[in-house]
């Protein structure tokens, strides 16, 4: 069991690294890849915790996550926004990469300090999941703020979701219904936002949010 817990920590650190990668990737395609990787690591951690707690519900949660975040959401995005996803331009962001990395490194350390007193010394594996999930949430929010690109913002929204669930699966073992609802909701959110973004892309020729700053009487064609 100690080996499983240790492996879970490895998965957790890879999860947070993937979140960092999602934050610093410069092309939409690699953001999507980082998101899929992050979701897969979330699934792996959920399965390990299911093994650790002998919980069938957690295994179901893992299945739902695979279906929603690894298959459906990337599929929806590729189908509605294929052109934009493959765009080879660089994503604009407000803050440059080294500063973002340092800030979010600070946020990660902060998350460990915040999570430590919440759970006490007994649940070490839950503690690392809670801290890293919290860190992923903070990084997701930060990425959402600094990115000037609609698709990347959708993906960081989903990364926040992943962070919440990464923390959630460690705290309770009976969250299958919640995750089912959230997984479905995530898919719906992505579908709606993807269609909106597609409309923006068709009208403006790109999904860069920075070009939405001016108000205009009529939409430029």
């Amino acid at each position: 069991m100690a080996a499983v817990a240790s492996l879970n920590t490895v998965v957790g650190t890879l999860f947070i690294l993937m979140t960092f990668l999602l934050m610093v990737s410069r092309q939409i395609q690699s953001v999507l890849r980082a998101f899929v990787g992050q979701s897969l690591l979330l699934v792996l951690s959920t399965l390990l915790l299911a093994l650790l707690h002998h919980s069938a519900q957690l295994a179901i949660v893992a299945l739902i996550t695979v279906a929603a975040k690894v298959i459906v959401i990337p599929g929806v995005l590729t189908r509605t926004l294929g052109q934009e996803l493959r765009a080879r331009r660089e994503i604009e962001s407000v803050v440059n990469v080294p500063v973002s990395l340092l800030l979010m490194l600070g946020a990660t350390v902060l998350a460990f300090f915040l999570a430590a007193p919440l759970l006490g010394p007994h649940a070490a594996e839950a503690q690392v999941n809670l801290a890293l999930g919290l860190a992923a949430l903070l990084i997701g929010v930060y990425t959402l703020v600094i990115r000037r690109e609609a698709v990347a913002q959708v993906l960081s929204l989903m990364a926040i979701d992943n962070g919440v669930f990464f923390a959630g699966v460690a705290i309770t073992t009976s969250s299958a219904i919640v995750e089912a609802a959230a997984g479905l909701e995530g898919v719906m959110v992505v579908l709606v936002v993807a269609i909106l973004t597609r409309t923006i892309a068709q009208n403006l020729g790109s999904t860069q949010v920075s070009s939405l700053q001016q108000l205009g009487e009529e939409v430029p064609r």
Partner: protein
Amino acid sequence: MIQGLALNAAQVAFVVAAAPLFRGVLNRFEERLQGRLGPSIWQPYFDLIKLLQKDEVVSEESTWIFRFAPFMYFVAPLLVTMLIPALTDFPLFWAFMGDMVAAGFILGLGGFFLALAAIDGGNPYGPMGTSRTRMVSSLVEPIFMIVFFSVSFAANSTIPYVVQAHWTTSAAALVSPTHVLIVAAFVMIILAETGRIPVDNPSGHFELAMIDEAKTLEFSGRSAALVKWGSHSKLMVLSLVLVNVLVTPWGLASSPGAGAVALGALLVSIKLLVFIAVVAGIETSLAKLRLFRIENFLGLAFVVAVLAMVVQPFHL
């Protein structure tokens, strides 16, 4: 004591003799991966022999530093070899003279003299390469330090032999997140410090894009051979630290007999070969970064190293 000195000499001889081969095999691997034939694996030796036979031209404007630096650069990795477990897993004569930080300092000293010599030579590309190398090094330095901190937290020491013994005795510690992250950060540091692809293109011949090579343009003849050989040895020594201390601490000679040491050398060569395959894979799949993107790459390495330290208490 005689035996200790003999083993030390064997370690240094192994590095000196095999370093050009190591570079040659790496180049050949990469060329093959990219669908080209590539030069022979013995090509670095031919280059060195050719350079050693040539006359040396030294600028009249340069000082003694220019002539002295190649020797310093050549010797620095060999001094580090005496501090690390290159072939044997029991501490040798000089093992407790210095730890990993000292090894970093010695390598840094060689780099410092080469940088001085590059400025001394008066070639306009020299100072440019020097300032770029210093930029990369100053970003690598904190990562090195944090990797050492994480290692010393895990193994209670920064002496390479003790660290190696720690990882061999506890196989479970090898899959701990700290260890995985330390290895990842160290690979990134090696790529940056030895001028490999995401940071610098070792086979590029365009002076304006050079980082590491630009410093050596002014050297000729014997000095050029020593500098080339020194950089081969540096790559090999850093790889030895990685494979022998961090990733796979097994397979080293544990008794001082000649047979055991020869077997150790064979196993170490196999481990280095596997590492060469990994590096060739990384270099083939990545493109060289633009100069001001290097800080992003090293920033990520810094994140990896700090995470290694942060998650330390959570996998007991």
